[in-house]
């Protein structure tokens, strides 16, 4: 299927976004260590995968599970990579004062509600269909995912130490977020009603739906798979993030490193 040329959106608008991101990054941050540049590269590569590869084509009103993979990439993977690409010291130097604790608290609330809420909001049946059919609403949805993802990961891996959650609170933050997407995932997996109607009667422009359905890949199976994708991979990713938080927690920090921003940009091992 990957070989079918019609499935590749080479003229996708995402190239423009990728170009802007790369331009801004390399103009703002010069001489970054390879690991940070790698994180950036990975981020934009996943953006391309989400829109240019067959996932992008199939997500556009064809297959619900592909649509879900696209969401996950835009909400969780791409923002995570982009945040990891930010150098701690440089970003910290932009802020002369440490942000107030209230601001850090508010960021956490916005991050959690944004990260979990975006998934819920865009899967209200009507919104789900409209955003798939209407390109500009689709654009709004994808950028909102990206933005929500950035604020979601900020308290965990953000470059500013003062706006990061302490590891135990971070674990609670991620675990509750996992429960949040689990609930929606369970609903989409096990419900008998159609969550996103546009995928139930998809316009079969390639003429492959009949053979897919004959192989047992009915819209209902597709939806089940979408629900499972929303449920299990994010939780697995969060568990991975929790492991990194645990490592941070059990690491002995010298008093000096706790106070000041960690000078890690020259230390590839300290990416997170």
């Amino acid at each position, binding site marked *: 299927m990957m070989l079918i040329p019609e499935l590749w959106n080479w003229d996708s608008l995402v190239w423009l976004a990728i170009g802007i991101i790369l331009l801004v990054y390399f103009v703002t941050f010069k001489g970054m260590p390879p690991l940070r540049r790698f994180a950036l590269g990975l981020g934009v590569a996943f953006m391309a995968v989400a829109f240019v590869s067959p996932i992008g084509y199939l997500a556009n009103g064809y297959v619900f599970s592909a649509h879900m993979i696209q969401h996950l990439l835009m909400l969780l993977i791409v923002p995570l990579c982009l945040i990891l690409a930010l150098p701690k010291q440089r970003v910290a130097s932009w802020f002369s004062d440490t942000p107030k604790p209230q601001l850090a608290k508010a960021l956490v609330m916005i991050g959690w509600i944004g990260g979990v809420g975006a998934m819920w909001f865009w899967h*209200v049946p009507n919104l789900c269909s409209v955003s798939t059919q209407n390109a500009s609403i689709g654009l709004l949805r994808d950028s909102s995912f990206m933005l929500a993802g950035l604020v979601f990961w900020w308290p965990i891996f953000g470059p500013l130490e003062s706006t990061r959650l302490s590891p*135990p609170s971070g*674990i609670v933050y991620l*675990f509750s977020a*996992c*429960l949040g997407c*689990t*609930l929606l995932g*369970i*609903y989409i*997996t*096990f*419900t*008998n*009603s159609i969550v996103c109607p546009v995928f139930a009667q998809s316009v079969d422009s390639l003429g492959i739906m009949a053979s897919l359905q004959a192989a047992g890949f009915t819209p209902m*199976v597709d939806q*089940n*798979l979408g629900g*499972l994708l929303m*449920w*299990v991979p994010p*939780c*697995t990713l969060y*568990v991975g993030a*929790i*492991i990194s938080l*645990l*490592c941070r*927690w*059990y*690491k*002995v*920090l010298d008093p000096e490193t706790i106070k000041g921003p960690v000078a890690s940009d020259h230390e590839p091992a300290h990416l997170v």
Partner: protein
Amino acid sequence: MLQPDSLGADSRRNLFSWICSVDHKRIGIMYMLLAVFFLLVGGVEALLIRAQLAVPKNDLVSPQMFNQLFTLHGTTMVFLVGMPVFTGFSNFIVPLMIGAKDVAFPRLNAMSFWMLPFGATLLYFSFFTGSAPDAGWFSYAPLSTKPFSSLPGVDYWIIGLAVMGIGSISGAINIVATVMCCRAPGMSLQRVPLFVWIMFMQAILIVITIPPLNSAISMLLIDRMLGAAFFEPARGGSALLWQHFFWMFGHPEVYVFALPAFAIVSEVIPVFSRKPIYGYAFVAGSSTIIVLLSYTVWAHHMFAVGLGMGPNIFFAAATLLIALPTGVKIFNWTATLWGGSIRFTTAMLFAIAFLIQFVVGGLTGIMFATVPVDWQLTDTYFVVAHFHYVLVGGIVFSLFAATFYWFPKISGRMLNEKLGKLQFWLWLIGFNATFGIQHLLGLMGMPRRVYTYDDNPGWALCNGISSAGAVFMAAGTLVLVWNILKSMKSGAVAGNNPWEGFTLEWATTSPPPLENFKELPEIKSRRPVWDADHPDLADWKSEKTPEDRGHRPAGAKVAAWSFVISEAIFFILLLVSYVVFNSGDEIEGPTSETALDVSRTGFFTLILLSSSLTFWIAERCLRRDKIGGFKLWLGLTILLGCVFIGGQVWEYSGLISNGITVNRNLFASTFFTVTGFHGLHVTGGIIVLGIMYMLGRLGYLTSKRTHVFAAVGVYWHFVDVVWIAVFSIIYLDVFK
């Protein structure tokens, strides 16, 4: 007899002083004694099961009796042995290990304990009704529903479990608060003994894992008592939903047992290898990961029900994943043994046997994670063998290790090592004979939960061996009981630290005084007693651990948040059941659109929400010591709460007069269940607010005690948040 001690030489014989005790050590001992008693009861049930199955076509007990025996054996061992015995050890040991005087809430602790005999009495009282529960420890629907179990056995099972569940959750909240709030200075959370950390994780797991069971049994009780049909497929209900809810509790429950076993072994192996644990952070961290993952794998108990290929594959993968954090620990323990100066005490023997047998149980678990293997072997004796290797070969063996390890601290006397080793070998042989052979029986296709079997080739011999093994285990248990009685009377005096242990419980007398410690050694590492005994080789000189920053949250706040999280899960599952039954095809009879008056309830919703605002203002007044304003705003909060309840009564009476009652259809059942439980929570909240009002009037609540009032606030705001969810889902139909 016990040495004179905190337990009080004069009061020791006084039963009443034990009943009234709020001392964590006495309550811990009572938990353990209760568990031992039910271990004997559950053990006798097991012996009867094995006696019945010893030969083919046996008729020692009736089929009905056999069903009752395995149901009560399972329920007893899970709820009346496993949970209490670990709570007992946790109660006794955790405060000592963190250098605390007692648990955070001693009275709550006593209440948690006394719920247990109360629940147990209810469960076993069912025998006198002539119908003990007989639907298996998981009471699968529709077998457990009224048409198929018309006698009251299942009702006793439900109410017994609900009562014990309340005790378990409040006990667990207490441990969470104790670990977070009562640690001695210097003991950062990264420095607590592994037993404390893992029991902390287990307590968190109990807080989040009992609520699904409570939701399920509440719904089953409403089915049985009020004629609803949540779990009756014949009337539109879903038997599958019961399985989901039950295993959402049931699988994490396995880790509620496994985590304490890990905790015990993580203390016993290092001490008897005379080495610190290898990879502290890995053992602690992987236990945390287990808590998170254990919540994501429940459906592997349901591979055979036909969930579909997608769910099966995902749950199989998640199940394989959870083997990793468990496997990591096996390597940690083995590496701790490696190069250690090992002392083969009875405790250590049990710990090593645990290691091997638990791996066997774990490996068969991984086999079951593979869907086709599960399809072939589910509901055979292979399953029985698998989970007994985990629960008995793993967990009971670790319990024996704990008994031999901490008995000197609890009683002041050593257990007899010779008798201990005799018990060890009896159990090792008996356990492996009983359950090892059941792997074969399972592979040969012998089904579980069937009261007898045909004389198929090999079955009689295997079952004979299995039953004979049970006799060894029974004999071993009697040796332990004899050992305990004998050692209490004439065992060697233990002294403070007979095993040269590392952690703080060994820094005080055996048994410890009422206030636990006369003085504490300095805590600068994970092994403060080792540091004190070996100043030259002190851990903190060679290995740095994160310093204690002295932050201890208020106990009331921690308890309130833990309680609210637990209740949130309970409501989420009730709401899930609402969505399941009301989002699909059209249902006959009333629905939320036809039966409910959204604008009227919207008005009462605003009333309830504004009560959160008035509460907040009352809290501000209290903080500034403006008692007059405090009483005014709190009084208004109570009034608003009462108005909301009045609105609910108005709504209910309207519905009932229109013939819409809980047994009308699934909309009505779910509606009344969700809103009814919410109403009960509001009513409970109003009562607590009333108590606060009275305390304010009498002058007990001042600005210094704002944290207590704030804790009540956490609950009151929570009740409002739940209502927002209820209103959006039921009245506004956001899922349609």
